[in-house]
């Protein structure tokens, strides 16, 4: 064997080792501090941990009817404004929409009593009141993401006079569908009372590990292998690090609202069965009469498409549309495909109905 024959594999092994070390350092040991959620905004209202963000318009005369983004209670809302060029907020602003966002903040142990009624009839109601006052508009448009979508639908059913347009983004409505979370949350398998009575709030580590286990190989192995293979691609690395920052910045879910979500939706499917009462008032989806758009991710493993697809059949709106987009739960708000192919269309739909 010639010296060259030995040197080549050694050099290759060294190169691979260096690449591997760099990947491990960047992804796990010492990830650089990446800024996410940086679109200029002002905090216009606070209550407890809640902050209402108003994004600075980028057009001279933004649309008169403001849009409020209502995020889930799990994870941070910065996924809707990940980084320049990867931001739903940015697309909406560029189209001339006046955008507000509810950042629920990180609940503390003292917030474990906050229930669905408090979120819907106190927080969302207060926010809408504030936005109406700032904008001078009689009504607002709402875009609810995931759990935030379920709460937006509930709010619109209870207070239809406030809502001009309703957009749901991967929102769970019918929970009696096949899905891993439905199976885990089933009454037979999960004693939510015992869990919340002991932990107070649903701890972020519990939620995070649950999500990791939904797709264990992809989340714990493939993701890092893919990162290693693309370590020399600067744009890929930037996006990966921004996503990792968002994914690892988990927050607790207040105990009472978690208990109610599991019981009322996963275990009893009350919303679809017309049995959900908030503060004694029956939530009837047929009370929703405003224009509605239902955005569904075709490959959603958290909220299966079947869980959202029937929403438009349950409401009375005449102007309604469903879009099933070929992406996953998170991809619907961060993939370049959806930011180019879906969100401009959503913005146009909204603008047409905001006059």
């Amino acid at each position, binding site marked *: 064997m010639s010296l060259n024959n030995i040197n080549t594999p050694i050099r290759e092994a060294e190169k691979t080792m260096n690449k591997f070390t760099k990947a491990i350092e960047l992804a796990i040991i010492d990830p650089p501090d990446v800024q996410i959620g940086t679109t200029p905004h002002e905090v216009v209202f606070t*209550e407890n941990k809640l902050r209402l963000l108003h994004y600075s318009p980028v057009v001279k005369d933004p649309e008169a009817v403001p849009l409020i983004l209502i995020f889930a209670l799990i994870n941070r809302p910065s996924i809707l404004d990940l980084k320049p060029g990867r931001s739903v907020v940015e697309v909406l602003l560029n189209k001339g929409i006046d955008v507000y966002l509810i950042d629920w903040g990180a609940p503390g*142990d003292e917030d474990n009593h906050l229930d669905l009624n408090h979120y819907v009839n106190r927080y969302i109601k207060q926010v809408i009141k504030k936005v109406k006052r700032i904008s001078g508009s009689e009504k607002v448009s709402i875009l609810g993401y995931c759990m935030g979508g379920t709460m937006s639908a509930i709010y619109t059913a209870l207070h239809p006079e406030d809502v001009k347009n309703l957009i749901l983004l991967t929102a769970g409505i019918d929970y009696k569908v096949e899905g891993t979370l439905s199976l885990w949350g089933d009454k037979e*398998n999960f004693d939510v009372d015992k869990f919340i*009575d002991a932990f107070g709030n649903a701890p972020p580590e519990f939620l995070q590990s649950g999500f990791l286990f939904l797709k264990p190989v992809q989340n714990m192995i493939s993701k890092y292998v893919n990162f290693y293979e693309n370590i020399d691609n600067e744009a890929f690395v930037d996006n990966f690090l921004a996503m990792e920052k968002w994914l690892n910045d988990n927050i607790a879910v207040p105990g009472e609202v978690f208990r109610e979500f599991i019981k009322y939706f996963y275990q009893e499917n009350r919303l679809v069965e017309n049995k959900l009462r908030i503060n004694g008032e029956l939530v009837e989806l047929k009370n929703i009469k405003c224009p509605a758009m239902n955005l569904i991710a075709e490959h959603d493993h958290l909220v299966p498409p079947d869980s959202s697809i029937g929403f438009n059949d349950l409401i009375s709106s005449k102007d309604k549309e469903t879009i099933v987009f070929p992406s996953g739960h998170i991809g619907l708000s961060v993939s370049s495909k959806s930011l180019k192919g879906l969100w401009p269309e959503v913005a146009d739909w909204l603008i047409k109905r905001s006059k």
Partner: protein
Amino acid sequence: MSNESSDHSEQYKKFYETWEKTMTEAMDIWRSNPLFNGEAHGGSDNAAHYKKFYETWEKSSSEIMEKWVNSPLFAANIGKAVEKSSELKKYFDDAVEKTLKNMRFPTKSDVDRLHASINNLEEKINDLTDKIEDLNQPGKATKK
């Protein structure tokens, strides 16, 4: 009970069979690797082989794992584990709380109650601010 255990053993069997199939496929690819056969060529050939091996392993492992976490057996077991750890945490927290109370120390519940009172006060201030703003808006003042 016997029914339950036979269901479980059926699931374990399915899981094992799928795992065995996967590993056999992956090992077949590995065995056809020139390195394994002592016929090492250039680096790119080997890299391509590793990649193929990994992709086969990844695809089938994902399928097995997803089947596994989607099985009633997994859901029941993980539910039991959560239930037992909840019982343990509650027992421990209650013991700490009682001990601190007996020692006349403020407990976590006391601090939580204090925080919640501050939050209630903030809500009241926000309500009052709202009322003032309503009164200051000509033609929009409402009677309550």
